[in-house]
């Protein structure tokens, strides 16, 4: 297969890559860039473990050709918290929303896109957003809770979430 050149900006860093056009973004991130924080849970767009942000939108990296991302800004879990950990990451840690942690990178990326678009989502909006992200460990309660606690609602409301 003929190789093609693509340019990606991943977590703010420029990459120029020479790849075969059939390769998915997930493999390029994990293998070529060694950013293994992005996970593969199904390879079919059905678990959300591979979710990354493409120009701010959550996409399944397992279904996105690296070629499609040519010239785009990509954020992976490694780039979510600029210097410190992101408040979402902090919330996931503190609220017990992480058990095995395999779903966590995708879950946090999806949540990040939601909060960027809607700073104070309702519980239902949170569920809408993460409905495609499977977690087999937690039963989701604590994940919804963690995301909810990051919305900029008043302290009083925060206390009322579960």
């Amino acid at each position, binding site marked *: 297969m003929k190789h093609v050149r693509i340019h990606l900006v991943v977590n703010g860093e420029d990459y120029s890559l020479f790849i075969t056009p059939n390769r998915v973004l997930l493999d390029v991130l*994990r293998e070529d860039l*060694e*950013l*293994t*924080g*992005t*996970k*593969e*849970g*199904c*390879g*079919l767009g*059905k*678990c959300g*473990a591979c979710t990354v942000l493409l120009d701010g939108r959550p996409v399944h990296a397992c279904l996105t050709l690296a070629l499609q991302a040519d010239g785009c800004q990509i954020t*992976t*879990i*490694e780039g*979510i*918290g600029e210097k410190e*950990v992101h408040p979402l*990451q*902090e919330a*996931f*840690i*503190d*609220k*017990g929303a*992480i*058990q*095995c*942690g*395999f*779903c*966590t*990178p995708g879950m*946090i990326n999806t949540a990040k896109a939601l909060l960027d678009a809607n700073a104070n989502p309702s519980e239902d909006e*949170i*569920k809408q957003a*993460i*409905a*495609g*992200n*499977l*977690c*087999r*460990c*937690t*039963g*989701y*309660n*604590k*994940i*919804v809770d963690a995301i909810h606690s990051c919305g900029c609602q008043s302290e009083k409301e925060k206390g009322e979430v*579960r």
Partner: protein
Amino acid sequence: MSQLDIVGKSFPQIAAREKATGETKFVTDLVLPRMLCGQVLRSPYPHAKIISIDTAKAAALPGVKAVVTFQDTPKIKFGPRSEDWTIFASDKTRFHGDEVAAVAAVDADIAEQALELIRVEYKELPYIISPLDAMKQGAPLVHEDKPGNIGAEFKVEAGDVDRAMDDSYVVYEDHFYTNQVYQAYMEPMSALADVDLSGRVSIWTGTQIPNMMRMTYAKALGMSPDNLRIVVPEYGGAFGGKMENNIHLIAAVLAQKSGRPVKLVNTRHDDFLAGNPRVPMHFDIKIGATQDGILTAKDVKVVGAAGARLVYSQVIVATACYRVDSLYRLKNVRAKGYTVYTNSVPTACFRGFGNSQSTFVLESALDELAIQLKIDPAELRIKNGMGSNETSVHGWKIGSSGLRECVTKASKAANWSQKKNNKTPFKGIGLACCNHVSGNRPFAREFDGGSGIVRVGKDGRITVFHGESDMGQGQNTTFAQIVAERLGVTMDMVNVAQVDTDISPFGLGSFATRGTLMGGNGVLAAAKDAYDQMADIAADMLNTKAADVACRKAMFFSKSSSETKISFQDIASEATIRHHGAPIVGTGFYKPPTELPDPDTKKGNISPAYPFGCQIAEVEVDPDTGQVSVTNFVAAHDVGRAINPMATVGQIQGGIAQGLGWTLMENMAYEDGKMINADFVDYIVPSCFDIPDIKAILVEPIEPNGPYGAKGIGEPALNPTMAAITNAIYDATGVRIKELPVNPQKLLAQIQKLGKHVKE
């Protein structure tokens, strides 16, 4: 007990930060120089004779470094319990997904192409999927040397069942079926194998039982166990599913043949086809009670499908036969269990280990008795429930039991009485209880306890070594809390080492809800040993006796005169200097007061502690579609003491989510002997919309045998979920669910057949 600083507090997992930032290296993330990609060729047929395998073309493909079949293995029969395994199929394949050949290549594309170049000539054979059919005369044999496809039989009897049944005021009798479901851990099974110059094999894999696996695999590879090393990095969930599996051995054989490291990661499809899902079971149950609701006798027959080889299904069927007998004060019980070979994927452990299947059946039957007797189902459980310091019909010594408290607290929180009596069409509430173990004496015959090593370096940094397995449930954090509490230090000083069979103690592993109690007591004993060594030095430096020394918040002091304090770090440093560089190393073990069950009567005491629980589900049934949604859930669990309440609640919520999926959504379906929904497109597990708010209540009776009073929680979290939901469906519709999962069309048809809604 003196005041606790660390135990009983909710700490985030010690690895949470790495997990949240993507820093954690899971098994599938590991890379070694010159590593190859392994892939497996699997049988497309449920049962087929292998006429020939031609691997020449695959081997000749540039980039392919090894192609292996049965011929490349030591051809030794092995297995964790019953030696009916081979690493690859030899003369015939026994299930759709059976391992036929494998390749290792420089990348995944080439490996995939190579698989396509392997020519296998098969002759299809008649197959059998249902265990009931498999037992029939003339059924095709999965293993020629196993007549009637019987893999194992189990029998237990105590008291006089027939007489007690005759004397009963009511008797309920029925057939139930629990289906085959998949663990669906988010990280598929995977292994990285490497061979050194001496031929020593290392396997990095997510496994619940590193040490026992090593013994089984050493036999399979024809080597002595000391030539095999198992390392357990962080891994993405297991729920019972990650024990022995051929893919680990295939990675090892590929590494041996290629002389290079080989990583083999199941595709999700392969993980469905050839993982080790839950044992499907048929139950015939008969159960009696007196007029005032005292249970008199229970009689069950269990037929479980082993699939094509025995993994742990025979032990799971045995568990389904009798573990649940210690939930209530039963006196007369009888059970017969058959574990039957079928041409389907080998089945094994999944959270609940047979007790979840039988709890569904028993708790459904109890609901029927409650209806016949017009007794409140909660009251029926309270009447019969096992209490503290009682001995069950099989000799199990119940230390602490919070069962009744679980029922009353769950009922109160769920507003049970009011909701039960206030009938709303197509809305219902249901309740179910469970018992379980914290360790299982007969699972490994030599011993059943736990052990640990606690190392304190010159800098005061503490490293805990254990041989169990943190599959994501948070075991390492629990162990760190126990050790920090015992040493009197802060959590940030404690590190938990990755399990490595070259270094770690020989732990039995994480199953049977044993981690917290067995492993926890093991590391507690090791921490005590380390503490005592440090206290001697502290006493010397504080000019007092060791008995007068205490340590809190990482400061040693004399209890009699608390003026001078010396930091934990200073003591550690002094100890290392006095010992010319040797660190403090505490070792210890826990020997539980259990008894191996008698082979005939099965009387014994299989666990040092028994957790209990009660769950209440509320459902709504759509009258047009039969779709069931769970709208509210309350779960009260006797956990002895929650070492980490947040983690404990997380276990409960996660267990219920899995139980809900099993009850309402999940089923591994077969057509023409092949699994037809072997991916997340067609096999749907719960998403956040399927799971209601789950209110978890921790009942803490403080278990005398537990570390700081703790029992386990992993499996009880799911055991009662199925019956809680189906009992609620009965309450909503009058339909008794006897087969999992609930099928909306069938439910609708039964509702219509009933003619009118019982609650109207």
